């Protein structure tokens, strides 16, 4: 049952990305390109997505998940080195190609070989990340 939910959520998420145009790299790069032909679509996508999510988070105060024991723990407020470094690196890659992880996967079916290469490179980066995180943590500890 949880698997069926996961599949359906993936499908809905993907349709949302497709309909909103977020699988089109020119729309994403257009949003980031404030000195070019700026495209505000991404702001509407974010706003449209944040509204139902904000309502859902409110429900988590009063109830339990239908098919789980607990809701995800609050991630806290610590702004550490991996968060900052990682977000800088992610933003650079996002700007270069106009793809982030969700749309990269959602467009695999129609994005051609380039999309496959991007996704494989992204998986490569995800394999490298834990070792890098360890080094960042060690640096922080020795400072």
């Amino acid at each position, binding site marked *: 049952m949880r698997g069926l939910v996961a599949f359906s959520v993936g499908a809905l998420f993907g349709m949302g990305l497709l309909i909103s*145009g977020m699988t089109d790299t020119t729309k994403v790069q257009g949003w980031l390109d404030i000195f070019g032909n700026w495209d505000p679509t991404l702001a509407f996508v974010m706003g449209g997505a944040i509204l139902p999510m904000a309502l859902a988070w409110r429900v988590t105060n009063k109830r339990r998940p239908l098919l789980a024991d607990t809701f995800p723990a609050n991630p806290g407020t610590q702004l550490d080195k991996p968060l900052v470094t990682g977000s800088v690196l992610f933003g650079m890659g996002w700007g270069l190609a106009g793809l982030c992880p969700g749309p990269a996967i959602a467009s695999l079916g129609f994005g051609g070989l380039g999309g496959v290469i991007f996704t494989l490179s992204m998986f490569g980066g995800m394999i490298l990340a834990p070792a890098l995180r360890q080094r960042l943590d060690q640096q922080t500890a020795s400072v």
Partner: protein
Amino acid sequence: MQHDWIMGLLGGGLIGVAGALLLLINGRVMGASGIMGGLVDGSGRHDWAERVLFLVGLILVPGFFAVLLGDSQTHLTSNWLVIVAAGLLVGIGTRLANGCTSGHGVCGISRLSLRGIVATIIYIGAGGLTVIIFKHLLGAI
């Protein structure tokens, strides 16, 4: 197109409903990089089947409709060096930061998480700077 913002709002709404369902039913945060990262680096072994099913839905359903409608394109650059570099950066960055546009952006901001808000400001800023440098200064993308 002049109606892009309506489609954006509509598609965004679907994304938000998807995230809300995963949270309220399965008790999980819908973060794309976290879901696939846990599969790739082995840290999500205990619930691998759910992760795989999420990704299968994410590939098949938009793929089916894109082929059906026939006019969906990613307009991804054809420069393979840029594609590989961007993929590596996105993979490393999202796992270091523990989130991407869906996890930090949609799920984080909507619960007013400080980490999510700060991460989103940083990656949008870094993305904007990257576009300025590589598009307008270097003409490389």
